[in-house]
């Protein structure tokens, strides 16, 4: 003072390691065991093929609306692979790759997107939250989980995913502020895929980056090429370590792209050009990862072909299992289960009324 520029103490960074031309920055290359690399690659391939298969199923009317993830696999896997079983995974609704890594079955995903509540059941004790469709709202749950982990003096980390659009929500702001105030072990992974349905990031915020929003919370932030599995891996690894060791929250902006429609109910041609999509296809994380493994000698053309065949078979089996299961899951009365720990009397009456209705009409009712 009297008049001077204020300098902000926290720093925000940018990171890229394996660019879209295949150039690798050796100094920054994270050391990942071959086995782990292959496991990550396998999940990426599975997520990609499963996503493609779900689109077919949806087009054939065999499942309902769902949000494809194509193009965002690296942003999800580079981050999620750092979580331990006791860590918490808090998702938005476009994290199928991360979900598969965490062990959610393709069957349950298919059940969910074909309108069966059973599809939201998680394996007992699994520390994952189900999809959170209300944009940004899950950010706050991740903060509460992180606070609780600190309270229990557990070295557990919570990783929360959300999109670029979510950064405009009040819950995002309140969540990052609380996380910083309470120094919760929360890693905020923003998948900036360029679009919120038909809305661009430019329309979403006046700032050139999303990562700089971390400065409003006194939180470290890093912006990475989200289609570069190595960059996401490195940045998320540091953030998870920081969180696990009491260093508090980190904001990671993964710059990626949604190659497909917002959901199967959406028509991207209304709001974006094929050219834009084509340029981003060149930055597709999957071939980039493939070439890295081939150059590194971690995989061969042959081994990748075998993997492809395995993955497709797995998906086929899952689809068959899921469709068989669905036939068994028709009981409408199940909708009364688990609203409360105990069914209140008036709900019990409504349940028996519905039982009568079903008995009287069988599977057939009209809604005009």
């Amino acid at each position, binding site marked *: 003072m009297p008049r001077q520029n204020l300098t902000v103490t926290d720093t925000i960074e940018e990171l890229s390691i394996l660019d879209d031309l295949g150039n690798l920055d050796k100094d920054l290359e994270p050391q990942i065991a071959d086995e782990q690399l292959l496991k990550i690659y396998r999940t990426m391939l599975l997520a990609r093929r499963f996503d493609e298969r779900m689109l077919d199923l949806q087009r054939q009317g065999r499942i309902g609306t769902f949000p494809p993830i194509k193009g965002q696999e690296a942003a999800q896997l580079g981050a999620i692979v750092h979580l331990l079983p006791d860590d918490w995974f808090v998702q938005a609704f476009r994290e199928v790759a991360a979900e598969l890594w965490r062990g959610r079955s393709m069957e349950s995903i298919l059940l969910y997107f074909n309108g*069966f509540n059973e599809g939201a059941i998680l394996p007992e004790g699994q520390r994952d939250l189900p999809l959170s469709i209300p944009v940004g709202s899950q950010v706050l749950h991740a903060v509460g989980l992180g606070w609780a982990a600190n309270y229990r003096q557990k070295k557990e980390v919570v990783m929360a995913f959300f999109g670029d*659009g979510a950064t405009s929500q009040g819950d995002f702001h309140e969540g990052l502020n609380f996380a910083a105030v309470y120094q919760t072990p929360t890693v905020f992974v923003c998948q900036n895929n360029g679009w919120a349905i038909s*809305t661009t990031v430019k*329309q979403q915020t006046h700032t050139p980056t999303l990562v700089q929003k971390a400065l409003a919370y006194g939180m470290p932030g890093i912006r990475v090429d989200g289609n570069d599995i190595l960059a996401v891996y490195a940045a998320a690894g540091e953030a998870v370590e920081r969180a696990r060791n009491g260093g508090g929250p980190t904001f990671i902006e993964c710059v990626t792209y949604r190659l497909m429609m917002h959901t199967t109910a959406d028509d991207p041609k209304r*709001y974006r050009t094929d050219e834009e999509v084509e340029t981003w296809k060149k930055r597709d994380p999957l071939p980039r990862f493939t070439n890295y493994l081939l150059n590194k000698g971690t995989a061969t053309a042959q081994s990748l072909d075998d993997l492809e065949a395995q993955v497709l078979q797995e998906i086929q089996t899952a689809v068959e299992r899921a469709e068989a299961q669905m036939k068994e899951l028709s009981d409408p009365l199940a909708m*009364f289960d688990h*609203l409360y720990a105990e069914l209140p009397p008036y709900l019990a009456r409504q349940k028996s009324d519905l039982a009568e209705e079903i008995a009287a009409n069988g599977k057939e009712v*009209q*809604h*005009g």
Partner: protein
Amino acid sequence: MAKMTMVQALNLALQQEMAKDDRVILLGEDVGVDGGVFRVTDGLIDTFGKNRVLDTPLAESAIAGMSIGMAIYGLRPVCEAQFSGFSYHCFHQLENHAARLRWRSQGRLSVPMVLRAPYGGGVRALEHHSESREAYWAHTPGLKMVIPSGPRNARALMVSAIRDPDPVIFYEAKALYRAYREEVPEEEETLPIGQSQVIREGKDLTMIAYGAMIRPTLEAAEELRASDGVEAEVIDLLTISPLDDSLMVQSLTKTGRAVVVHEAPRSFGPGAEIVSRLMEGAFFYLQAPIARVTGHDLIIPYFSREKWFVPSVQRIVAAARNTLAL
């Protein structure tokens, strides 16, 4: 007259009001270039430009709060919650401010805004996309709550809502968006907010419904005539709040029996108020308890089971027969 879906009819109302009145501004998520996820605002950004149709950032409280400011200034914002299940994000803006400002300022300021939101089941949607919680708004003094039941009255009510001097919550039944077409006159048409309509005359039973429940209710009425020779009178509320209880009470004094139908959960739902108004207005004419045919007191299940949540023709007919002691 052109035959239109409800989506087209709503689009016509918006387009004509915007052409007529430069105070009318549309804002919301994806209402511009995309034309809204249900295409209700399709093409309007091309006709009226980015300055009349705003693709906003993703924040419902801001969409509603900014609309309040625009309305205070003298504009007529028509904002959208992409689905009614996400309108709760701006509930505080509506309750704390939009509903109160005229009263707080003793008439100096007002908030002539419309909040549009698709509601209800029937389109195999994901979670949070099929709720019917109009009672939250209806229980909020200072707000008006409107739910059309078809293309023609949707168009007329939307025009009235835009011109209304007070904030209007306007729920649009997704199940009706493209369900059928109806003649909608090109020339201007409005409907008074706060007035219900008798859409089917009858002497034996009064049926009260609104929105997407009108069609199954009318079918049930036909079924009752066909199989039981019962003549049911059907009342379409159109406005949930301020609730018009005059026609329903009149009808009940004639029929002595009533069935109320809605998709919302039963407990503390709109049907409870209707039952109470009928009892207050026509108790001594009542020959049987008034039946409530509603959604269950549950979260609407994922779509594979949805048809067992939303009232069906069969559920309505069964309740009616019960009421008629048939």
